[in-house]
């Protein structure tokens, strides 16, 4: 197996570097004519473009063109508006070379075979550092698990982005925990980005336009999270004509409709996705037959062009997940409930008004409401209960942007956020013995002012300097526990409970968050960039499980839970090669984290009224190197990235119970030193696209037993209890996987008059069926000689077939 992936990797790398073969110096001529395939007449003004040299010419009146090139192999692109572009490989030898091409009329616009939306030169010229943008087309090219195009999973192909394991919710960016990423969908933050506990992401591919991940040099417009910003932008509805798209897949099916209500003025987009996968459980073993796992999401966006200078957009999003575990499946784990239901939903709305004062001078106002709620219920009468948690987020923001200046482009804004958190509410059923619990609601506000200036110091040097001031207030009603200073914080150390009235300030925090990015252009194809940013995070996700449950608690900062503060410095070298055919970059970063969160051994989080007795805070540091090479044009496109990244934490409390690993530095749960990602797309014709995706990463840390002892207690007589001492000092095996997908699109000329265009996507996830470890655990069982076991989540090959359509 090792051999297999090495060969695959070599092939992928080989393909990407295919066209950089050395060439002899002598130039030769390439002569050619272009004719219309239907009429046979020569065509004038057709663009003939050489991919490798990025040089192009136009044909004359007789459809004739002439190019001088060095001998070698070239990819030509022949294009003319309204005709299907031709891609041809041409081998030039010494002497005269002749080619003739026929162009066929196109009824649709053929998309470019590129990986980025941005222009390749942006890699070098933009001031931003540590930002990656993916458009939905490139995300769709990545082979998908069970055929579900997944925005979050596609991010894992970027350098600096990792996860604790497959099927888990959220990503870790540059040594940050899952909750340190601000995920915005049209300005509305999402508190859970996955369906079915982490198997699929909540974004509907029919509604998403592009996603931008900023992991360094983050703009001062964004704040509130310590590690990164993932900005997901939805499409603007088509304001000219009605169109639709959708797909039928193994797990979920989708339908999206968009079009104008008043042409050019008012238009809307409605995208719906729902899963119909109960039949998959019926195929499974007996104990899974009663299981139900369903989700759906609805995305709706309205666009109203009030006048030439004013536009209004309204985005609504609703997502719902339901998971029912049947009694039979529970009896295998001896849970005394006949069934349990898990549900969680996200509801968000964004209203955005943009007024253009003058050209490149705009004023925008945004209002956001986002609500996330999760519940678990057990219907059994004696133990009937319903556990709810939720978070309500309200945000108002105004921003003035002026990009008209030659040397200064600046923006300024103000934002106010209100948080309402329902940590856990346990409601018993009518005949239940369970006591109701209602943990106190948390109320808090976060306000921020920000300015930013993109200042062109000279032709070579540009700076984006930003400053954000954020202020956080934790408000009453609140009862705050006071602890004896001589004891570790625990429920028996409470000395008094202090009450705060509604609206009273319980605790406030605030601070300046400077942001800086600098670009120094060495030559048109090379630049050096630097970035520094400080981010302050007041809202935390509190979860001590390997992967956060959708029902995990969110908590705002308090006396005891201090805000997390991250300072990051990064430096990068960016260089484009072969006339922008290749983009390369190398970045190094160092990050310092204050008040990093970890947990006491075996701490209880759920229904804990005093989180401070479970949470520990300390220092964190992360550093790494990220390298990436990308090929943008040609039949083969794709990228290879390598990341070296380390993340360490140090929890050094006053009492032994409040220290982790005796106060020494230890690797964080998501510390994965080496990551290699390779993505290759081969598009030999208009109808076929092959995609390959390979990923390798070091295993994450694990806590493994140092020894064991046998228990004499009769109930578990002879059981071996593992002895654990220090946290995260072992490592689970390395992870690697190859995926493949092939897309068959209908040939555009087959039915030129038909609006309906269909395509088939066949994908294989985990092609060589490696049983990658999610975790390693130790257990001495009487019937097995092994002491260590490996849990694999997607331990086999997953084929899937999806039919997508457009009309």
């Amino acid at each position, binding site marked *: 197996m090792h051999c297999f992936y090495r060969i695959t990797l070599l092939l992928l790398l080989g393909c990407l570097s295919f066209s950089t073969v050395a060439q002899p110096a002598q130039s030769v001529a390439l002569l050619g004519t272009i004719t219309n395939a239907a009429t046979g007449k020569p065509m004038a003004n057709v663009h003939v473009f050489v991919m490798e040299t990025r040089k192009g010419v136009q044909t004359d009146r007789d459809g004739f063109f002439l190019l001088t090139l060095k001998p070698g192999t070239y990819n030509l692109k022949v294009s003319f508006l309204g005709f299907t572009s031709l891609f041809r490989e041409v081998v030039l030898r010494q002497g005269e070379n002749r080619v003739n091409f026929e162009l066929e009329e196109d009824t649709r616009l053929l998309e470019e075979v590129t990986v980025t939306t941005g222009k390749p030169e942006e890699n070098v010229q933009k001031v931003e550092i540590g930002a990656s943008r993916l458009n939905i087309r490139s995300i769709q090219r990545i082979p998908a698990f069970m055929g579900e195009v997944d925005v979050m999973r596609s991010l894992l192909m970027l350098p600096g982005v990792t996860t604790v394991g497959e099927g888990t919710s959220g990503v870790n960016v540059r040594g940050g925990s899952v909750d340190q990423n601000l995920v915005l969908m049209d300005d509305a933050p999402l508190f859970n980005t996955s369906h079915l*506990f982490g198997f699929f992401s909540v974004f509907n591919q029919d509604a998403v336009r592009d996603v931008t991940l900023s992991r360094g040099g983050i703009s001062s417009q964004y704040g509130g999270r310590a590690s990164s910003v993932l900005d997901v932008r939805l499409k603007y509805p088509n304001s000219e004509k009605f169109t639709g798209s959708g797909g039928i897949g193994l797990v979920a099916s989708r339908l999206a409709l968009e079009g104008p209500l008043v042409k050019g003025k008012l238009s809307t987009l409605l995208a719906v996705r729902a899963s119909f996968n109960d039949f998959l459980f019926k195929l499974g073993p007996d*104990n899974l037959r009663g299981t139900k*796992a369903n989700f759906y999401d609805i995305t709706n966006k309205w666009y109203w062009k009030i006048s030439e200078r004013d536009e209004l957009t309204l985005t609504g999003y609703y997502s719902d997940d339901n*998971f029912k575990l049947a009694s039979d*499946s*529970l009896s295998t784990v*001896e*849970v*005394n409930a006949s069934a*349990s239901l898990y549900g969680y939903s996200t509801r968000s709305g964004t209203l955005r008004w943009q007024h253009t004062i003058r050209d490149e001078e705009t004023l925008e106002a945004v209002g956001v409401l986002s609500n996330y709620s999760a519940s678990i219920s057990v219907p059994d009468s*004696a*133990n009937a*209960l319903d556990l709810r948690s939720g978070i309500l987020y309200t945000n108002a923001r105004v921003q003035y942007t002026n990009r008209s200046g030659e040397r200064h482009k600046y923006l300024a804004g103000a934002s106010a956020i209100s948080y309402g958190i329902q940590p856990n509410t*346990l409601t018993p059923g009518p005949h239940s*013995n*369970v*006591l109701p619990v209602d943990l106190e609601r948390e109320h808090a506000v976060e306000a921020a002012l920000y300015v930013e200036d993109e200042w062109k110091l000279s032709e070579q040097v540009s700076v984006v300097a930003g400053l954000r001031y954020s202020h956080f207030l934790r408000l009453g009603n609140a009862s705050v526990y006071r602890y004896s200073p001589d004891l570790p914080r625990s429920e028996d150390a409470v000395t008094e409970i202090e009450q705060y009235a509604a609206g009273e300030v319980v605790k406030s925090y605030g601070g300046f968050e400077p942001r800086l990015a600098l670009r120094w252009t060495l030559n048109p194809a090379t630049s050096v960039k630097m970035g520094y940013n400080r981010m302050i995070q007041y809202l935390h996700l509190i979860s*001590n*499980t*390997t*992967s956060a449950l959708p029902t995990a608690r969110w908590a705002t900062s308090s006396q005891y839970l201090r805000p997390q503060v991250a300072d990051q410095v990064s430096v990068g070298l960016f260089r484009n090669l072969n006339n922008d055919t290749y983009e390369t970059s190398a970045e190094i970063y160092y990050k310092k984290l204050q008040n990093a969160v970890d947990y006491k*051994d*075996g*701490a209880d989080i*759920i*229904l804990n009224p005093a989180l401070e007795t479970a949470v520990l805070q300390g220092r964190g540091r992360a550093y790494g190197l990220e390298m990436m090479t990308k090929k943008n044009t040609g039949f083969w496109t794709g990228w290879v990235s390598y990341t070296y990244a380390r993340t360490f934490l140090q929890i050094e409390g006053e009492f032994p119970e409040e220290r982790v690993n005796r106060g020494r530095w230890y690797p964080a*749960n998501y510390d994965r030193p080496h990551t290699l990602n390779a993505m290759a797309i081969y598009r030999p014709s208009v109808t076929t696209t092959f995609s390959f995706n390979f990923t390798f990463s070091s295993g994450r840390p694990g*806590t*493994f*037993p*140092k*020894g*064991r*002892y*046998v228990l004499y207690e*009769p*109930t578990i*007589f002879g059981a071996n209890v*593992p*002895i*654990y*001492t220090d*946290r995260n000092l*072992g490592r689970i095996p390395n992870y690697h996987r190859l995926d493949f997908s092939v897309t068959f699109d209908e040939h555009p000329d087959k039915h030129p008059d038909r609006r309906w265009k269909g395509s088939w996507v066949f994908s294989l996830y985990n092609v060589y069926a490696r*049983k990658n470890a999610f*975790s*390693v*655990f*130790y257990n*001495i069982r009487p019937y097995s*000689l*092994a*002491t260590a*076991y*490996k*849990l*694999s*989540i*997607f*331990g086999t090959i997953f084929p899937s077939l999806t039919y997508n359509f457009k009309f």
Partner: protein
Amino acid sequence: MTAAGFKKLLYKSVGWCLVLMAGCITPYDGDVKEVPPGIVVQGFISNEEGPYTVRLTTAANYTYAGLNYAIENATVYITDNEGNRENLVHKGLGEYQTQTLRGQTGRTYQLHIEANGKRYQSRPETIRPVSKIDRVYDESYRIIDPNTRQDILGGWKVYIDTKDPAESGNYYRWSWKHYKQAVFCGSVNDRNGNPLYGLFCCNANCWDIVRCMGPNCINVANDALINGKNITRQEVAEVPVGCLDRYYIEIEQQALSRDAYVFWNTVKRMLQNTGGMFDVTPSAIPGNMTNVTNPDEDVFGYFGAIGVERVGYYVDRTGADRSECDMGMPYPPTGGIPPPCAPCAESLYRTAKRPGFWE
């Protein structure tokens, strides 16, 4: 349901379900060969009659071959808050036993050990008063036969009702034992060790003891959610389908300290750990023993002080619509010389002592 039960439901069911959906568990070669230093202490004192046993061993490495060696010739004694002290007698194999000591509810006890030139002691622990078990009752439940898909009798669940004291911070543990009058106390085996026939007990009063065993049988709870109310329908035992008889069980309710509760709950979680996505990261099991001479040295295990309440109960299986009566070993052949009888040897699985509530 209690908080612990609820958390069990949460972590286990979700984790397992996802594993069942797509995951698989395979052996992994990752033996840990090093042997940790430190000693292991296990024992308890209760309000029931002694003698109480304390076991001292070394820790073993985490492999199949690893062994916990007994620590012999240590000085072991128990003190209480009224200044009493009793030395434990070394019985061999790392076992130390009390002579006359009997635990009393409300008193605080502490264990002291001097071994290998080091001194160890437990945190003082008080025997807490234990609530009365007000009622014991059983209910049959039905299951779907996996082969025939028919609805059949699955067994009986035994529940108790008890009252939680008004103050908070009460911790419980339940366990049960089934006693069955033994017919055979030994067997005659063939060359491969397979029994040919049983040997009758020499004494008519001999009982086989059957226990619920395994981490799932560590049945602990706290009163965080239920403080001061009645604990009703607390499941304490599950009785399988068997012969059409009356099934005798003895139910034990223990009052634990918070430390003991945390210890047993952690042991349970450790032993149940499947490495799943929603399993809490494994951690050290917090014991209550420390090395007085060197506080940095790890000492494992627990010395507890527990209040015990015990009741007997018969589950009536005579009217069941299904039985699976195990015939046991064949009787000795008749004729010839009568085979010898076997003594009723005291062990975890057999006793000659008449069960407290036997009718």
